[in-house]
């Protein structure tokens, strides 16, 4: 009994060390524990992505987390193990958001609780808090198109490569680069007032 317990512990430790693609292979074979590990690994990342995609609607984000994992399971047999899991997973998530947007005019809803527009520039300059900046960023993200927002999040939140992002969004690499460049400029404009360096940032000591 003791031996079998130790043996099971060793198997589960090995599974926890397995990469995403190996876990997917086990899931395809019907391994429930592998699915539990993959869920623990990805649920928070996915939730954060969806929260920002959906403008901070917690219930909707949670519902989508569930839907997306179910889609992953229903399509698991189509996943090729020689590919990376994260881009495949976020492609499903991105497409799900796109569908969600078709059913609602989200842009209008998002601008009603626009955070940074309600603050005067003076207030901003005097109280640049990290949380304020975060809220301003989230609000600015909601002013981007769905595709640009997704692109930005996949790059800066999920740290995916440009190649992976191109695959997820089904766009050529050059287009991803130019749109990302444009998006950064657009965000800069909106967040300029929140730039902490406006308050004097002691950047380096090497000067």
């Amino acid at each position, binding site marked *: 009994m003791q031996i079998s317990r130790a043996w099971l512990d060793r198997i589960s430790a090995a599974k926890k060390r397995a990469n995403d693609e190996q876990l997917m292979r086990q899931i395809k074979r019907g391994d429930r524990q592998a699915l539990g590990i993959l869920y623990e690994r990805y649920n928070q990342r996915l939730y954060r992505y969806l929260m920002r995609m959906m403008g901070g609607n917690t219930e909707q984000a949670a519902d989508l987390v569930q839907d997306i994992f179910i889609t992953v*399971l*229903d399509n698991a047999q189509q996943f090729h193990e020689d590919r990376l899991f994260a881009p495949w997973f976020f492609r499903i998530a991105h497409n799900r958001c796109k569908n969600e947007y078709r059913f609602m005019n989200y842009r209008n809803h998002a601008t009603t609780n626009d955070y940074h527009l309600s603050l005067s520039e003076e207030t901003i300059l005097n109280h640049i808090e990290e949380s304020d900046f975060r809220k301003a960023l989230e609000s600015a993200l909601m002013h981007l198109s769905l595709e640009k927002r997704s692109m930005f999040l996949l790059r800066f939140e999920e740290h995916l490569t440009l190649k992976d992002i191109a695959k997820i969004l089904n766009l050529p690499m050059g287009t991803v680069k130019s749109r990302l460049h444009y998006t950064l400029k657009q965000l800069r404009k909106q967040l300029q007032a*929140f730039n902490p*360096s406006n308050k004097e940032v002691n950047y380096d000591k090497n000067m």
Partner: protein
Amino acid sequence: MTKTCNSFKDLIDRSQYEHLIAEDASALKEHLNVCRECRKYQALYTQITKAVDTPMAMDHTVRNRIKHFILDHYRQQNKPTDNLRHKLLMLFGRPIPLYQSILLVLSILIIFIYVSRKKPNNDHAMPQRAEYYHTQSLNLPRVLTNGDIKLMQHQMNGINMTADTMFSVIAITDM
């Protein structure tokens, strides 16, 4: 060729999503050491990256509820017997005891195989039949001649039969 602040700002933008070539990277680094404006420009990106990287935790109970839902869905998906049970339920309109049914079908199959393997031996032991009627020929309407009827009347001693009653006897035996 000396670069302007604008071209360095462009490099700063690009460095957010792709690797700069070594030459550009070192030129930018040197410029940032001396230009406050470009440092300010870059600081906003640092701030954005930091803000985006903050974790957003899903409520603990919601997270667990979703986990159980997903695991349940997966268990259903991986139970082929459940699929079969569901199909049987759809077919018969009532729950069918699956394992008992499988046992019953298997027993019938075994008995059938056993019987069909024994049959040729019995046939072999039987005396050869003189004639076999082909099923198709049995179904064909047979026309009896007067001679046939007389012969049959002769065979059925003591019973007086008309041609009509003979027909019905033949019809019944044929069935």
